[in-house]
């Protein structure tokens, strides 16, 4: 599988990354060499093998749905780059 510079541009858009032409070119080469490396996995028969994500079997970890104290609006907004009227402020989204 070979990634084209156009696909790299598309992935950058999905990831909300703006790449310079130079970065785009470098990533195309580097990502391709890493993807080549993944080809090895195709040799392995994994039919019927379940995926793994935890060291010990655990499932459906739930807690009681009870209200509890949380951060105040002031604390939650303290790190915001921009804010107004107890909200995070962003550039206009709706015209």
């Amino acid at each position, binding site marked *: 599988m070979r*990634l084209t510079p156009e*696909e*790299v541009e598309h*992935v*950058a858009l*999905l*990831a*909300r*990354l*703006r*790449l310079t032409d130079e*970065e785009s070119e470098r*990533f195309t080469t*580097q*990502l391709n*060499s*890493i993807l080549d*490396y*993944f080809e*090895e*996995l195709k040799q*392995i028969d*994994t039919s019927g*093998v*379940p*995926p*793994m*994500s*935890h*060291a*010990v079997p*655990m499932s459906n*970890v739930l*807690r009681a749905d009870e209200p509890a104290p949380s*951060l105040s609006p002031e*604390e*939650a907004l*303290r*790190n*915001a*780059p*921009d804010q107004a009227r107890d909200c*995070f402020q*962003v*550039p*206009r*989204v709706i015209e």
Partner: protein
Amino acid sequence: MSGRESLYELTAHELAALIASGEVSAREALDAVYARIADVENDVHSYVLLTREVAERQASDIDERRARGEKLPPLAGVPIALKDIYCTKGIETTCCSRILKGFVPPYDADVVERCRESGLVFIGKTNMDEFAMGSSTENSAFGVTRNPWDLDRVPGGSSGGSAAAIAASEAFLAMGTDTGGSIRQPASFCGIVGLKPTYGRVSRYGVIAFASSLDQVGPITKDVRDCALMMNVLAGHDPRDTTSIPTPPPDYTATLVPDVKGLRIGLVKEFMEYQGRRVDKEVDDAVTASIERFRELGAEVDEISLPSLNYSIPVYYIIAPAEASSNLARYDGVQYGYRTPDNGGDIIEMYSRTRDEGFGAEVKRRIMLGTYALSAGYYDAYYLKASQVRTLIRKDFDQSFERFDVLIGATSPTTAFTLGEKTDDPLSMYLSDVCTIPVNMGGLPGMSIPCGFSSEGLPIGLQLVGKPLGEDTLLQAAYAFEQSTDYHRRRATPIEERNGRRAAVVRP
């Protein structure tokens, strides 16, 4: 104090004993560590932030409580270095990324709360690869850290600042995180002890996420006893992390007996050789000598091959970037951290410019890789396939534990490499984690302890791997080995001249 060494060179348990007996105050210990930092930090650069005001208040509080006759926890008053990946209430936390510069968390990570409750004193936040992505600490947005044993070399990564702080005696205890080897590989490169516990043994609540199915918190220390004492601080169930294991942890100091008679140790071929390439000769020799040492101590050592471990690196470089691309979507310039000053009044433009200006090259590379692997049509081919191969890797480990109590091998195929050596070749950098990554794939506990020095005077690490929740057995094997060697007593002194350049000198 003993007079044998400077105060800052003591282990945490030696210092704790002096504090408990009243021979040294917590303030004196803190002053000694800051004096040491003043001497060596310009050369080593372990820290990105020193929190002296906070530390002085914590130390004085311990001294006052002791003066009142209060019974204090075992490590009370001991200064600790925290990797800059833990949220610390009221203390800047950046993950060594420009995108989090200035972020002051409104709460503590679970492990930070536990450290506070144990009376530990916070020296500062240590340098790391940005978002823990790297094996050399060269990906930090805030400068490189140098290996205290040779200032031209990397300390390893991603917890390189924590490892260097311990090796240079700029801290008595330190904490790291390990997603693919980020505790064990720097511990190996810096000649100290590092433990990655079983996945789920230590809470990740408030630890900035990289790859959530792999990330684990653990201690970096001067010796095995300090490691066990830190595990007593860190381990335990936390309902705020849904992966946290409810089983109560044991007292990890209980197995610190120098006895491995009858212990069955498996030397894993894949920890010594990858796709036909052996680890470096001097690493090979040091591991072989360690095996002989274990045999002399009464352990039974035999070789084993776990073939599916050969797929660990490609599996890791699908799973970790995929999870990272999702975890790092939150850095968008809205709720915290950096926002571009020039957003053109458009929100997509604001997101993209913020992330372009805020993230470094390796982070972008992994976000790209992960986004691609998870994008439409590729999930089954990459992420699902990789997660299935993880099951096969774990099965190989499980079968080996029918024959062995502990697995053993090299921590890293090489000793510390030179600064800049691998920065232009991501794949060769990734391969420096070839021995540690399989352990994260299996969710197992893994540890690195010093097992020798190369002809150039660089430390070599021995990796020990245990069954799920087998930290106590690992600590016992590590302790028995350590007590029969003196590698853990050597200290790097990164301020003397050697060969006409500033470099480390091994002493005594």
